[in-house]
């Protein structure tokens, strides 16, 4: 299929539909509104369900219901709206319901502004909701990757019965880049998907003898039973941490004098700064975590070359992922941070200068 020029918000929506998503519930918010508008336009055409919920709270609970019925379902919002979904997200994780959530991040805290930011890292990765749980968190850095992640997200959600969050931002949502789409699932394939969860989901009984009584639920008043339940979920998480860590290495080599760790939009900028420094004969490597949870702790540790003086964490926030990097680096070398906030995206020149100071 030929490349087309598309906004990230629309590309990820199109990709979700191609991945077999036929139910979408959301509430408008800048800078993700093109996503909901695209779904409003396309879902009816593919016989899917689009509902503009009365609120983000309602939307995430509609997702709980549709996901509990075993269908591929998605919601999306931006920072403040994602905060409103936290109770629902905790329920979805607790009830082990597959679902995909997209956060097109904007500047915060509070109403903040509508420009891009990455200040929802903690909320996404450490759990903004109550209780012990994890979301699988994917962080795209281009419109193409944003789109590709949709299918990936649904597969992961189904495979592990866990909600998956795609952590984008206003820049990825609003910008157009050339994007190429994968094959669109056929109605047969989608029908098959609808059956994969019939052993636990809300599902009609064939007949009198079909005695199943499924419960979509996160309540368990007996502590010892609840503990078992949580431990089960965590053994699932252990498997995810073993199998699903994704990251990119860029210019990582034994000559690196600085190793950068940066994700999403921020990492694009860092890459071009690295190129410029290379031209100047200065070797800087980059690890770009693609899964923010599970997090590539060991991969970061191993990427610290013999000549690395410093690990530099670059984020569009006041310093959130840096905690995880510190845990990964574990004192081997100093960890420094550079970030911009308020919706400001640092420039390659700015980053280049910062990195150069480390030489």
């Amino acid at each position: 299929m030929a490349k087309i020029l598309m906004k990230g918000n629309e590309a990820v929506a199109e990709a979700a539909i191609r991945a077999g998503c036929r139910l979408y519930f959301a509430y408008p918010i800048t800078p993700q509104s093109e996503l909901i508008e695209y779904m409003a336009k396309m879902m009816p055409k593919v016989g899917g369900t689009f509902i503009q919920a009365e609120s983000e709270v309602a939307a995430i609970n509609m997702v709980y219901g549709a996901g509990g019925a075993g269908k591929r379902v998605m919601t999306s919002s931006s920072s403040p709206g994602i905060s409103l979904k936290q109770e629902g997200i905790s329920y979805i994780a607790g009830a082990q319901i597959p679902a995909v959530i997209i956060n097109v991040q904007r500047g915060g805290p509070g109403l903040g502004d509508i420009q891009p930011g990455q200040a929802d890292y903690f909320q996404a990765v450490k759990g903004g909701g109550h209780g012990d749980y994890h979301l699988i968190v994917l962080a795209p850095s281009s419109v193409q990757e944003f789109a590709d992640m949709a299918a990936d997200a649904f597969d992961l959600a189904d495979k592990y019965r866990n909600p998956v969050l795609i952590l984008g931002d206003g820049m990825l949502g609003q910008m157009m880049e050339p994007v190429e789409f994968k094959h669109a699932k056929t109605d047969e394939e989608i029908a098959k998907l609808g059956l994969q969860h019939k052993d636990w989901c809300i599902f009609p009984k064939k007949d009198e003898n079909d005695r199943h009584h499924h419960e979509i639920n996160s309540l368990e008043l007996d502590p010892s039973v609840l503990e078992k339940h949580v431990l089960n979920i965590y053994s699932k998480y252990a498997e995810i941490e073993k199998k699903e860590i994704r990251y990119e290495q860029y210019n990582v080599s034994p000559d690196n004098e600085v190793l950068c760790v940066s994700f999403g939009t921020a990492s694009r900028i860092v890459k071009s700064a690295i190129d410029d420094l290379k031209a100047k004969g200065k070797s800087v490597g980059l690890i770009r975590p693609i899964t923010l949870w599970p997090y590539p702790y060991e991969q970061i540790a191993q990427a610290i070359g013999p000549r690395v003086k410093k690990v530099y964490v670059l984020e569009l926030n006041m310093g959130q992922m840096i905690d995880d990097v510190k845990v990964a680096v574990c004192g081997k070398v100093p960890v420094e941070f550079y970030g911009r906030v308020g919706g400001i995206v640092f420039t390659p020149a700015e980053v280049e200068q910062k990195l150069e100071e480390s030489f």
Partner: protein
Amino acid sequence: MMKTEIICAGFGGQGVLTIGKFLAQAGMAEDKHVSWLPSYGPEMRGGTANVMTVIGTEPVASPIVSFPDVLIALNQPSLDKFGPSVRKDGIIIYDTDMCPHGCKRDDVVKITGQMTTIAKEIGNIMVLNMVALGVLIGKTGLVKYETLESDLNKYMKAKNPELLELNLKAIKRGMELAK
């Protein structure tokens, strides 16, 4: 390794976003790396709209343009806002009809003309943006006229053949202006 960063700005409704989109589309058709980032949100309301377009031979790091190589300004506020940030020896294209006070800089290449007037002559003020686009490619050759033409054909031939003609004519007039 070549890269051109363009800002197109004007009042909402002047079609500045479209200039950027056609540029990016043509760039893509010519196998360049492109990005397109519009101003968005309520600040658009009533006020001015602008779009940042990057076309280059390498993947685009940041679609955000702080210091454009080229500025197309279709009104005075936009010229005043972005004019100062244009790179030394960069290009500023503006419509003298809409930018009465012009631009003071003399360390950049300025290409001006009564583009609104021209658009009216062509027969539809809506093609003002295409005139400006024509000026840009006429001056820089950033993308080929032919690429734009085939793109426009794809999108408009069926829907609105008349407007298509006007658009192409506008682009050509712009290219002449650039000479």
